[in-house]
């Protein structure tokens, strides 16, 4: 399982490192907008990693003037390096970010 996560983590890192354009904007300012993104994610093929990254608005670096990052996000599990938001459920690095960030 750990090696599987490692492979997925590397695949995500490669896609982001190679300049994958994701939907960073608009940031969901309201719960309704947040829920709409979750709805889009639920309609994806769970194996379609690239689509998850695009809809989630992933970045491989902190975001914004407050340098938001996965490390402080409430869905991030520090020891597993894992995003625990059920609609994403992917391994992530602490310095990454996505637009479903919540604290």
């Amino acid at each position, binding site marked *: 399982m750990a090696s599987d996560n490692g492979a997925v983590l590397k695949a995500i890192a490669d896609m982001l490192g190679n300049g994958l354009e994701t939907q960073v904007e608009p940031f969901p300012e309201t*719960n309704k907008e947040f829920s709409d993104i979750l709805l889009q994610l639920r309609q994806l093929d769970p194996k379609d990693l690239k689509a998850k990254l695009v809809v989630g608005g992933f970045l491989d670096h902190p975001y914004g003037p407050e340098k*938001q990052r996965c490390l*402080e996000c*409430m869905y991030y*599990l520090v020891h597993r390096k894992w995003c625990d938001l059920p609609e994403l459920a992917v391994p992530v690095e602490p310095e990454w970010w996505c637009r479903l960030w919540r*604290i």
Partner: protein
Amino acid sequence: MANLLWLQGGACSGNTMSFLNAEEPSACDLVTDFGVNVLWHPSLGMELGDNLKKLLNSLTSGEMALDIFVFEGTVVNAPNGTGEWNRFAGRPMKDWVADLAKVAAYTVAIGDCATWGGIPATAPNPSDSEGLQFLKRKHGGFLGADYKSKAGLPVINVPGCPAHPDWITQIVVAVATGRGGDLSLDEFQRPKTFFTSFTQTGCTRNMHFAYKVSATEFGQRKGCLFYDLGCRGPMTHSPCNRILWNRQSSKTRAGMPCMGCTEPEFPFFELMPGTVFKTQTVMGVPKDMPTGVDKAGYIKLTAAAKAASPAWAEDDIFVV
């Protein structure tokens, strides 16, 4: 003997159900051990029709002493301020409430509806409901801000949807045994003994709150319900995790977010779609912080807590 009268306005009877389930002390203990004489109660009263009217009139006239007047439910003012939508014993209930509150030694509001209006008073408030001495946060309510019972206390508010059985009976015992003057009330007239600590006080998920590990679905045993599922435990005053429900558990212990039902604003956000069981955020940061915590402090605390969190905090340590 202390004469107690319990009436019901715009209510679902939830607080009556709660009262009848009390254990420490029980409703029976009130009678047998604490000298409470239940003159009438919607589920226990024997008198009907003219006999009930006679009883109520003997109280309002002063012929019989009314030591404790308990009211459950809202005071209904509709239509057009007449109160005719809630008639009882031949006249609008609001008229009985006005007359009985004048002669009561103590007036006790049980449950959210009687304290601040609760769900019936939520916009658009079609029944023109209000609590005895509050409408939501606004002091005044049906009896007015200056109301004091004959013992010199304002309405004693025991909120909750419903109020915990033992909060009800313990307050009744305090009043019936002459210790009403010892009650210390907060700014919303809630007994401080119950409503100074938070719902979060004693919650079994406190370590997950401390290490910022979130529950993401109802019923999960691990994770705090505050971050995502709209739990109001850190900013709600109640002893729900100190005086347990059914002596066994609480909502948060069972994986169900606290809805803040002991606070005047309940139900929060007027039940707009998407507001129940979902933490409301602005740019990813909770709108309502734990009481006494500011945004900058919250962000710093989160960073430190995440960085320091132990591996076990991410496991379901309750299932082995």
